């Protein structure tokens, strides 16, 4: 009898092929579309040829800019990453702190639980003008936008994760003589750290979105700034490599967080599957 579809698995080499297939198809579709458009109009900017994308990469990533003498891709990348990483760190600290104490202490939950739920549904972009006036147009407001964008999610996630700690463990800790502080410090925080990384990984997409949005609003450098500026004259030959670069960075940061989680909390993966 033939195996059911749900039980049939590709062997390793077929698996690699299948994984590569969508990317290859996308590239083929792109080059066909690009060729067709370039045949009509050799200066077409929407789907530039691979060689003009290559030129753009050469120009942006390896050549000093004529006017500024800087290599734009690196200037943009470092500006964006500084904002991104600061935003993530602050959101993690704020989210972890408030999430854990709110999840742990009924009095905090009574007073802040609803507040955080409401906070997390406010679209941060809608209150941007207030953010500007309070924090100015500089780096602070960009980082604040990332923090406001993802910290409420992290807080809510942490509250749920703390509440998920089996009550047995909380009782057990108390029967070992632990005070509230000791339970927080020795039981809850260590168990939350790997989950905080999970929450952070889930927030990465939103964080990028808020970073790009912040850079589109007011800035002098950054990956989002460049994309929005280039969009003004449809320079897809620059935008596409930037998008690919952002995708790679996002993927890489996600991978780093996963590795950090596996290295620093070896017990976590095992206990989660168990």
């Amino acid at each position, binding site marked *: 009898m033939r195996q059911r579809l749900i039980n049939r698995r590709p062997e390793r080499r077929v698996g690699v092929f299948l994984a590569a297939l969508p990317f290859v198809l996308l590239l083929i579709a792109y080059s066909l579309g690009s060729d067709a458009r370039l045949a009509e109009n050799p200066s077409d900017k929407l789907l530039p040829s691979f060689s003009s994308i290559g030129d753009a990469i050469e120009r942006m990533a390896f050549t000093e800019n004529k006017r500024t003498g800087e290599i734009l891709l690196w200037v943009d990348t470092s500006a964006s990453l500084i904002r991104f990483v600061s935003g993530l760190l602050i959101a993690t600290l704020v989210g972890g702190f408030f999430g854990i104490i709110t999840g742990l202490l009924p009095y905090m939950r009574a007073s802040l639980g609803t507040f955080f739920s409401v906070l997390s549904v406010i679209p941060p972009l809608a209150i941007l003008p207030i953010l500007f006036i309070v924090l100015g147009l500089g780096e602070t407001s960009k980082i604040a936008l990332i923090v406001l964008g993802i910290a409420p999610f992290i807080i809510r996630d942490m509250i749920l994760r703390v509440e998920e700690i*089996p*009550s*047995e*463990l909380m*009782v*057990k*800790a*108390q*029967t*070992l*003589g*632990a*005070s509230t*502080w*000791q339970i927080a*410090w*020795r*039981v809850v925080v*260590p*168990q939350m750290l790997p989950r905080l990384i999970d929450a952070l990984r889930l927030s990465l997409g939103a964080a990028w979105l808020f970073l790009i949005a912040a850079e589109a609003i007011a800035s002098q450098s950054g990956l989002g700034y460049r994309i929005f500026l280039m969009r003004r004259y449809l320079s897809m030959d620059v935008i596409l490599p930037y998008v690919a670069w952002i995708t790679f960075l996002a993927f890489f940061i996600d991978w780093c967080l996963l590795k950090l989680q596996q290295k620093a*909390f*070896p*017990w*976590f993966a*095992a*206990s989660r599957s*168990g």
Partner: protein
Amino acid sequence: MTAVTLRNIWKEYGDNVVLERIDLDVEPHSFVALVGPSGCGKSTLLRMLMSAEVPTRGEILIEGEPLPADPTAERGVVFQRYSVFPHLTVEENVLLGLELQTSRLSCKLFGGAKRTAMDQARSMLEEVGLGHALKQYPSALSGGMQQRLAIAQALIMRPKVLLLDEPFGALDPGIRAEIHVLMRRLWQETKMTVFMVTHDLSEAFHLGTRVIALEKDRTRPEELERYGAVIKHDLDVWPPKLSDLEAHETVDSEATDDI
């Protein structure tokens, strides 16, 4: 050597009466097995003994003193699941209680204090047969080993009372038999008073010195909510499991307690 007294304990959740009229005098160094059909409130009774729940009425006394509102170190617990901390190694799990006790703020020990505590933890782990697995995380242990660890973790605190909530219910029969031997030995060595909830009658009679069966008096559907479970049977297990010497000691200390 701890006596436990329950006086007219009731437990209600809204209109639902779970337990009623529970009166119990437990002698020091007893091993009380609580049995009964599922939902009869035996676990609830145990949770009240660990201060994880509050009786609706009545009072619980330990050595004549009312039970504190929070769980304390003098009452150790072992649950069927989630008894050990997944983020700590076997050794750290046992060390934790000692660290919490001696270092209130940093929760960590250093230098000589750390070495003393470490030795203590290790000998306790040897005792329960986990001396070879000090650096492993609980998730790497079998169910039986996890329960041994949970017991070691509880016993390092030298509790007066040990509360066991179906601790061996999920274990394979062979493993369970081994751990029964260990449990009995530890109980005899430490002289603590043990309460154990179990749904396995043979386990109850095998380990217990006294078996308490909880059950609802009234079983008509319309009465189920309004009447809680009561102590239906209260059996002393014969023959007594204490050696003569121990029995003697018990009597002695009982006499002291009475004074």
